[in-house]
């Protein structure tokens, strides 16, 4: 079993829809949770960075962390065709291994105009 599981998609939605992207994990030591967006032939771009549980909002993006369920989500409101990309979740533990991000395999999102 992988430490971080992420549905590869593709997920296709109409423009304007609310998108929900999710990851589950098995390591209870994870405390830092990140979401990256990756366009084709580009590097991952940091969208959200959260510590421990709770919600964080930034514009159209909301990140949620539920540590009791070992489940994190990224919500995109009013989705746009420009949001079409692969979304990667990443997480790390505290302490000496903080810098070792463990990534999901990514979910491909297509927003249809």
């Amino acid at each position: 079993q992988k430490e971080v599981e992420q549905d590869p998609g593709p997920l296709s939605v109409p423009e304007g829809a609310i998108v929900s992207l999710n990851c589950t994990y098995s390591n209870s030591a994870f405390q830092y949770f990140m979401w990256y967006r990756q366009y084709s032939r580009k590097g991952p771009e940091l969208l959200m960075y959260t510590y421990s549980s709770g919600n964080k909002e930034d514009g159209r993006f909301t990140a949620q962390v539920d540590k009791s369920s070992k489940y994190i989500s990224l919500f995109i409101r009013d989705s746009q065709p420009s949001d079409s990309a692969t979304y990667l979740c990443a997480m790390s533990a505290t302490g000496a291994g903080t810098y070792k991000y463990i990534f999901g395999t990514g979910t491909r999102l297509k927003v249809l105009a």
Partner: protein
Amino acid sequence: GAGVSQSPSNKVTEKGKDVELRCDPISGHTALYWYRQSLGQGLEFLIYFQGNSAPDKSGLPSDRFSAERTGGSVSTLTIQRTQQEDSAVYLCASSLARRQPQHFGDGTRLSIL
């Protein structure tokens, strides 16, 4: 401002040749990371540099892989005697410090013939 810069963006070489990949981190970032991204796989941690400390090489897949960071800035990842399974995108990231979020370059696409 300038982001993480990687060169070359693409590299095609024959099996058995050595290759060098270069990473120029964001100015002022003390931490530097190398990851490998293979098709359908998540990002795989390779190596981590922090200031003048000894690097964490625990993710390097074999002794054919090595990396150095000169003057606390530019880093070079070297793969000796390349094999076809080395074909992947090699991504470099940097962060202000160990616990700060990582910012990625666009990667080097390596193809071994």
